[in-house]
């Protein structure tokens, strides 16, 4: 969840996502000089919106993926990239309606937010200085009687 009124566009979410998840050394001072360059999985759009993977229920990226690399975790419902089998065809990049999948030729995989499923709490929400990013339960708007 992004609170547009609180996001200041400070790029801290991008910086720490890349350092903590994508870099090898996990420290900011070394990550700046690393090769290949670490890739952040969250994007600051315009001045006031931090965008990451929405983990859609009917995910176009899963349907577009030719060999089942893009898959859904059965317990949490999160969509993630199984990096060993990715063939870098970029079909998911084209299919995503939000445009948050990053084709990364330097790392030879498609890079996508997985809501930090191996960490305790999403890094972007943890470091956001104004708490514009929050982890919330998704409300199911379909339970309305017609």
């Amino acid at each position, binding site marked *: 969840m992004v609170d547009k009124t609180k996001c200041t566009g*400070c790029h801290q979410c991008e*910086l*720490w996502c890349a350092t903590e998840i994508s870099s090898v050394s996990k420290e900011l001072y070394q990550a*700046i000089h690393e090769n290949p360059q670490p890739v952040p999985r969250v994007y600051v759009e315009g001045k006031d919106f931090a965008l990451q993977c929405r983990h859609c229920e009917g995910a176009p990226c899963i349907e577009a993926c030719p060999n089942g690399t893009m898959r859904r975790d059965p317990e949490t419902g999160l969509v993630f990239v199984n990096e060993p089998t990715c063939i870098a065809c970029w079909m998911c990049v084209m299919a995503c309606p939000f445009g948050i999948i990053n084709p990364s030729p330097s790392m030879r995989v498609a890079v996508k937010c997985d809501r930090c499923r191996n960490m305790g709490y999403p890094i972007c929400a*943890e*470091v956001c200085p104004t708490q514009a990013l929050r982890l919330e339960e998704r409300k199911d708007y379909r339970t309305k009687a017609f």
Partner: protein
Amino acid sequence: MEFIQKKTIDQAVEYFLPKAAESEISLVWDRYEGQLPECGFCETGLSCRDCLQGPCISHPFRDSNKMGVCGKDKDVLASQSLLRLALKGTMTCLDRISEFAEEVESKQIRPRNKAKTDQVLKEIQGLFKDGGSLMMKEFPKPLIQGWKENGILPEGVARDLFKSSQTLEGGIAGVEEILLRAFKSALLGGTSQWLYGKLKRSVFGDQDPTKIEVNLGVLKSKTPNLLICGPLSPILKKKILDVAEKMGVQVTGACTSPLIPPFTSRY
């Protein structure tokens, strides 16, 4: 964000931390924890706010904003952050000595060693103007030679500070020049500290080893306590001490030189 369990190894301070928490007094540890995580760009010096073209950052992980608007890349931005800090520090040192020298010249106190005091005052004037000659005589020759060869010999306020401050403009200087200028400005401040000590000794006399009391226990109950904080001129501190003694106020210092003989008549 992070909760740091052990705040300090100082037992006197640790004793008072729960009391401060109960009285809801905000201490430096609360403010630090509220600041976490600190801005990654400012931490690594990759930000610049010097001009109207906008506050710039150098994002290490995105190719679109690797350089500031004026074209400075990450190495230049980081070394300029260091130069800014060096300039700030050296100007503080120069202000201290200039204030002290002014007070001595206006005869607010009678110096112990008049001849030496006059000599040091003249030297201080020389330092501000073009670096002064005493440094050349008293520092080791290879050191002065090394400074001269690298261009970092202190040469007075105009040549050191004014020119160094201009290398913060965009597109003028490379990393090597910025770092050498940081050294040059810092050396001017360092030399002024050396002269400050000389002036103190010639005005007040030499200091002998003394016993002092430190930490929270110096505060006395049932007396007003005055806390002097920061680098004040020794003459001002001496005046405060003299008046406070007459009025029965206990004076202590924090982040300042100790109030011991020869600055006071008694401790």
